[in-house]
């Protein structure tokens, strides 16, 4: 079966190259049969890559250990679920998975657009096929998942224990769906440049195709954080690890792009900027894949050093040179339709927001590649640690939050003094109130108080937006508050979906502020029956148990949690010891989730068969608001993604019957 996969990949590469040639020649010479053939090449490549993926899945499930990838990433005792997911558990397999998702996206995009955007499609299809072709080259010549061993080992080496976790199975899928999805808007940007259709059509065409991968990426990053929080056992959720950063960087620029495309749509401005942003975003997804998959920077996630590095570097260089050449060539066609009227306008707030996003991106990128740079320049690798990122990015994120509140309050073009007063009075007034309340609740220190005040400000602006909108609607129609709120949201899903998303971001910010500034930490070595106090909790160690699972042993400690004088529950922190990788035990943190704080207990070690055990304990205030905020963010994105049923949106291009082009 491995050979079938290899042949399929080879054929896919040939057809991808053919498809690029057919599309380009077809569109230049106006030979539509070639364009159609190029389009079918997208489908054919999709079919072949799917065949290859099925072949690898088959080998994994059939436990064909003569295939090197199967021998190194699976074992007989591995549960079926993880056999399935080990497709993306290693380098070669995950590159195949990348390619599978890319060709999936390409097929869906080409099918969904159909005859719409037909001027852009041949170019977009070529770009997508070119990206596929690159990954196919990597798969065929540098990281072949179908490579056979000279012998057939009796059993495989098993999957990395860290990856034997449900979160770790879904989280990369989310990330990949996000990463790869940005290929679609990038392809359309290139298509717009190449075809010289540089009005605002391409931006409108890719709005949903940007929002969907952005959503996947957001969810993927959050799931990664949840995994780190629940598994790694150091009490936090984000360590500014290079691999985390690699997923975060395209998210930052992608978010900036989501916002600046609104400006191009509404005001015909920032055309060059948008091109550059989607280009940076796409490049960062490729660089991110490179960082995570080449082991160029040492980190917990980079499992292998390999020979895919040079190929990736060449591809990145090629994208950069090609895109920048095309952009400079078309620069005269990208003039702005409008000037910035005033600094007190929503455009300007959007512009600042973009700038701030880029600053964070730059700071994070610099910190991420800093070890590489120092290694290149000197000889010692100097890594930058989490405090650097927190110190630098913390205040910038705060500025971003402020802009998130200010932007929506400003009108397009220009805001007068009276409207500024009218809109800012209430939200600004909530800030001192929030500070006082937070102080009374026990919050101390300038940084968290400022952060909380800003969160209150932004929340007030969002609430005010909903209330004013509904009020205006009530005045016009006499509807009740509920109906009015529903109607305004329906009539402008993007606006109110965006506000809902912002609300999610505020919840997340509160979670981050709580867990960063108000965390409590303790550790103790306890004999059975002994207890440990942290904040207002008392933890009593009750003993250890041992359970044999499929391919590992579970050691679980039982700890009763007492608050005041009554038992509020129990937590069971685990340790899993895998038979194939006994030196790499994983931990399963015992977490007691309460609305305002998490009690987080890690089983650090034990002696005398569990008569004594040592624990690390954290209290993480507001942390679950981070996950809740993620859900609200998803909800907001769904609101603005949902197909519009109400009046106001029309198919962008409807051709009148009277035109000769339509009569043929």
């Amino acid at each position: 079966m491995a050979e079938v996969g290899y042949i399929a990949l080879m054929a896919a590469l040939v057809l991808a190259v053919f498809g690029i040639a057919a599309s380009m020649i077809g569109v230049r010479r106006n030979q539509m049969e070639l364009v159609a053939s190029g389009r079918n090449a997208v489908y054919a490549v999709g079919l072949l890559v799917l065949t290859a993926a099925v072949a690898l899945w088959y080998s994994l499930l059939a436990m064909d250990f003569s295939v090197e990838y199967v021998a190194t990433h699976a074992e007989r005792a591995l549960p079926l679920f993880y056999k399935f997911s080990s497709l993306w558990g290693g380098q070669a397999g995950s590159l195949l998975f990348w390619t599978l998702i890319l060709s999936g996206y390409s097929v869906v995009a080409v099918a969904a657009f159909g005859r719409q955007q037909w001027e852009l499609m041949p170019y977009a299809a070529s770009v997508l096929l070119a990206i596929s072709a690159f990954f196919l080259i990597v798969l065929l010549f540098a990281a072949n998942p179908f490579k056979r061993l000279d012998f057939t080992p009796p059993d495989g080496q098993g999957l990395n224990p860290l990856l034997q976790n449900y979160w770790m199975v879904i989280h990369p899928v989310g990330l990949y769906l996000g990463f790869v999805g940005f290929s679609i808007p990038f392809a359309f940007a290139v298509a717009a440049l190449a075809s010289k259709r540089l009005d605002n059509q391409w931006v409108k065409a890719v709005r949903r195709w940007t929002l969907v991968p952005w959503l996947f990426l957001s969810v993927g990053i959050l799931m990664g954080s949840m995994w780190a929080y629940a598994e790694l056992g150091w009490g936090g959720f984000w360590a500014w690890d290079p691999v985390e950063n690699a997923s975060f960087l395209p998210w930052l620029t992608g978010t900036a792009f989501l916002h600046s495309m609104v400006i191009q749509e509404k005001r015909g401005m920032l055309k060059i900027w948008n091109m550059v942003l989607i280009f940076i975003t796409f490049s960062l997804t490729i660089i991110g894949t490179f960082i995570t998959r080449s082991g160029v920077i040492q980190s917990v996630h980079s499992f292998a050093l390999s020979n895919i590095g040079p190929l990736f570097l060449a591809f990145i260089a090629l994208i950069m040179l090609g895109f920048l050449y095309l952009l400079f060539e078309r620069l005269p066609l990208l003039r702005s339709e409008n000037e910035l009227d005033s600094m007190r306008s929503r455009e300007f707030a959007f512009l600042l927001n973009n700038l701030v996003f880029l600053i964070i991106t730059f700071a994070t990128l610099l910190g991420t590649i800093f070890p590489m740079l120092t290694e290149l320049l000197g000889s010692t690798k100097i890594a930058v640690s989490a405090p650097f990122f927190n110190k630098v990015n913390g205040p910038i994120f705060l500025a971003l939050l402020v802009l998130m509140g200010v932007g929506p309050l400003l009108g397009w073009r220009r805001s007068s003094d009276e409207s500024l007063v009218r809109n800012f009075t209430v939200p600004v007034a909530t800030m001192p109130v929030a500070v006082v309340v937070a102080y009374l609740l026990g919050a101390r220190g300038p940084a968290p108080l400022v952060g909380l005040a800003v969160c209150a400000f932004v929340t007030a602006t969002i609430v005010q937006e909903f209330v004013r909108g509904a009020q205006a609607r009530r005045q016009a129609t006499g509807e009740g508050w509920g109906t009015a709120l529903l109607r305004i949201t329906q009539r402008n899903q993007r606006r109110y979906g965006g506000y809902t998303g912002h609300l999610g971001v505020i919840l997340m910010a509160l979670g981050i502020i709580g867990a960063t500034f108000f965390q409590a930490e303790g550790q103790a070595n306890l004999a059975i029956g002994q207890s440990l106090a942290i904040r207002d909790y008392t933890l009593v160690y009750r003993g250890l148990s041992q359970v044999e699972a499929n391919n590992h042993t579970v050691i679980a400690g039982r700890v009763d949690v007492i608050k005041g004088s009554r038992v509020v529950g129990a937590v069971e922190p685990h340790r899993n010891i895998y038979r194939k990788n006994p030196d790499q035990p994983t931990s399963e943190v015992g977490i007691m989730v309460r609305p305002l704080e998490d009690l987080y207990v890690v089983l650090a070690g034990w002696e005398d068969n569990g008569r004594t055990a040592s624990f690390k304990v954290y209290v993480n205030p507001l942390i679950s608001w981070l996950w809740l905020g993620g859900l609200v963010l998803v909800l907001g994105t769904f609101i603005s993604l949902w197909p519009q049923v109400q009046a106001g949106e029309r198919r962008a291009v409807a051709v009148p019957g009277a035109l000769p082009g339509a009569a043929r």
Partner: protein
Amino acid sequence: MLIFLGIIIVGIAIAWVAYPIFRPSESPFRATEDSVRQAWEALAARRDDTLRAIKDLEFDYRVGKVSAEDFQVFRARLKMEAAAVMRQMDGLERESETALAADLEAEIAAARQAQRPEPAPVAVREGAPAKAASPSGVVALEKEVEQEIQQVRRRGAVADGLRACPRCGHAAAPDDRFCGNCGAALPEKAITVCPHCGMPRKPGDRFCAHCGKPLAAV
């Protein structure tokens, strides 16, 4: 066995790609170098954008984000823009209608020559007409705007301090000498119009020559 399955799949894929080249008539794409249609599409998109911008502006005004004064100015500007775009679209449609008529005549002539019994295909209209495709809300707004635009066109100038090209209705800055849209020479000063009906007035008129209402001295 499996290897044959693989070869079959590869074969299907190659056939799929090759098929359109051998059956070009079934291609879903139309060859177009039709600049008129492209231009029309671009204009239609701009019109929709402008109409949506007007809606947004009205909403912002209602919730108090835009002052009354700015609202008037911006709305006037947007409506001028919409008017100019729609005018250009009208022009294109007229142009292409004549082209279509000529086209049809040629086709009919060809059909007669070929002695074909069935009539020439007159009713081939693939794209749905713009207005039928649009949701009712937009149609209403469009109608309203169009009415206002008609007024604007008749008047030639909308709000104080704004001028418009007498030929195409495109907005012009106070010191423009030529129209930025059609290149027509603009009159020295803004056209003076009757405040009641919007028709132009000659300097020195004391009553409007169109509606008869009294005019203040210029």
